[in-house]
């Protein structure tokens, strides 16, 4: 099946908010004249809004003017405006160190755990302020699951890894229900067949790719509303990657998924919208198809054509 076609259809049904209004970025779109990259990057600072279609009606996440500081001097994210739609898969791409993980971690307040890390701006999940004092990070993270860049299974059994979330939040009433959740999650993550005979062995004893799928199973076991995935398939072989991509496509029926990826083919296959980050700036957001076939911004074009990054 072709994910790209299906995703395009859904992408098109979204109403562009106000993004087509002229942004300075439009002026510089892919001219063949070799522009000095340094000046282009300098001009990112004056970009009031990402080019393309960053805003949506009735989004799942509504983020405005988000900046992240790791300390007084190190700012990792600069004034990002982005909406993330319901039941959409949004891919975040960009060169290494451009702040994809940092932005992703704002969405479930994982940045809280880094001392000195400060987030400013407006982040709303279903209209609720994510960073409000009244917002409970425990509830938030139960609603917004996360798969980390490096597989990080608990040093417990495979079963206990997957059962951790349901147990924590009291989602299963008895052992049978829990067993079912565990099996279901492992199956969806494409791992059940491989581990069904050794559910009681340590999850840390699995191979790297298996560990990553275990982490995915663990994250989906609590059926979160949003799943944040930070390069979930970078350690997987093409078969396992295919399983995860298929999983992402099924999960989209009920969840919202933000996925960071370095594979542009993957972004093209599974996402409906793509956001391109560059040095902490969100440069361009648009339908995946548009971004890959007809990028507006020079930096985006350079990146997807492999000229740098």
């Amino acid at each position, binding site marked *: 099946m072709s994910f790209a076609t299906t995703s395009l259809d859904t992408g098109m049904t979204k109403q562009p908010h106000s993004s087509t209004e002229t942004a300075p970025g439009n002026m510089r779109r892919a001219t063949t004249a070799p522009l000095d990259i340094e000046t282009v990057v300098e001009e990112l600072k004056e970009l009031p809004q990402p080019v393309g279609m960053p805003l949506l009606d009735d989004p799942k996440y509504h983020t405005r003017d988000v900046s992240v500081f790791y300390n007084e001097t190190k700012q990792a994210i600069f004034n990002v405006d982005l909406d993330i739609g319901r039941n959409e898969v949004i891919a975040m791409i960009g060169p290494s160190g451009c702040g994809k993980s940092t932005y992703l971690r704002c969405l479930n307040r994982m940045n809280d*755990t880094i001392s000195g890390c400060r987030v400013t701006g407006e982040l709303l999940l279903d209209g609720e302020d994510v960073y409000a004092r009244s917002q409970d990070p425990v509830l*938030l993270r139960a609603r917004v699951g996360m798969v980390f860049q490096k597989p990080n299974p*608990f*040093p*417990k059994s495979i079963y206990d890894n997957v059962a951790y979330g349901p147990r924590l939040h009291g989602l299963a009433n008895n052992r049978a229900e829990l067993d079912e959740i565990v099996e279901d999650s492992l199956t969806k993550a494409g791992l059940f067949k491989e581990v069904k005979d050794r559910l009681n062995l340590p999850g*840390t004893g699995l191979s790297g790719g298996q560990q990553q799928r275990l982490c995915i199973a663990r994250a989906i076991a609590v059926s979160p509303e949003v799943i944040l995935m930070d390069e979930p398939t970078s350690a997987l072989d093409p078969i396992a990657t295919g399983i995860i991509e298929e999983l992402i496509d099924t999960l989209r029926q009920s969840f919202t998924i933000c996925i960071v990826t370095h594979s542009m083919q993957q972004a093209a296959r599974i996402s409906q919208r793509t956001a391109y980050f560059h040095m902490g700036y969100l440069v361009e957001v648009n339908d995946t198809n548009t971004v890959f076939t007809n990028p507006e911004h020079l930096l985006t074009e350079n990146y997807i054509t492999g000229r740098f990054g």
Partner: protein
Amino acid sequence: MNKTTATIRAGLARRYARERRFRRFGLGAIIVSMLFLFILLFTIFSQGVSGFSQTFIKLDVVLDEATLGVGPGATGEQLRNAGFAKAISQSLYTLFPDVSSRSDKRNLRALMSSNAPYRLMGIVMDDPSLLGQTYSGWFLADDDIDTYLKGHVDRSLPETDRRLKDQTLGWIDRLEAEGRIEKRFNTEFFTNNDSREPEQAGILGALMGSFFTMLVTLLLSFPIGVAAAIYLEEFAPKDNWFVDLIEVNINNLAAVPSIVFGLLGLAVFIQLFGVPRSTPLVGGLVLTLMTLPTIIIASRAALKAVPPSIREAALGMGASRVQTVFHHTLPLAMPGILTGTIIGMAQALGETAPLLMIGMIAFILSTPEGITDPATVLPVQVFLWSDSPERAFTEKTSAAIIVLLGFLILMNLLAVLFRKKFERRW
């Protein structure tokens, strides 16, 4: 061969030589330390093993009414005042009928330890039917006899230079010939408290004192230390001057001489709060102060060693910070925490100086039964005995050290067991 390969190959021999040198050096260090350990253990054991045995003399004591002044059916009160000392003396006189002068008789009585009448009283009280009968049993000999039998008295010295005179030696020879004198395993060493008479001195009091003191120390320092470490490591704001100040102070406390904690305990716990002095309670409090920095530092290191990705995983699943700590971080850090705790407790078990300051050096004749009874502890007991002039206390000292070492080994074994138990959870 390219240039890099050539350079590397040229340096290889030097690299391996350095490695071999380092290995030999390490091995040498281990051998030297093992040697010293062996010498230490050898001296302690060779001296201390004899401390576990004691010389006993077999007496046939006639428990008749004429000697004791009480007959069958006597009450406990009457028994307590009965003439057991006389009965012991009588049995000695019967063994050596030719001894007649007063001073000779006194010397003869001096064969026995002064606690023989009390032993006899205890035996009779346990079994009143013995009254009117003749009781044959082993009674502790005086420590001079014991020292002699253990070969520490040179008979060839002129009589005036010896503590044991020819007359006494003659009696001992006769007793030996009759099989009435014997070195036996001294159970009283484990059931008696301290005593001025080396042959009667035991370590039960010090053992119980140590036990109660350690109990107080463990119950206070482990939870407080681990809680403090968890707070500092997992919850305290980073880069906060106040937290930094606390950290610096904890690290400094670990280096404070232990006697200072004793002074602090004296000033604060005893004089300010009125905690009874000389008790395991105040001893435990002082040792807690001393042990806390060790436990906190070790626990923090153990917590820090838990990979942050585990915390992230738990937090990302929606666990609260406390849940993250108790479900994941703490169990993973437990082996390290336990090691630190055992090291701290072992230090506390061997600590003498601060306890001297809070009066745990008192000469205690009764076994402490709780944390508020006056008590002493094993190392202080060792210190007290090593300070005593009698030859017989030297071996008691070593014996007590052996017991102390035994406890340390036991604690380490426990630590290993606990570690194994926790490590099995990966």
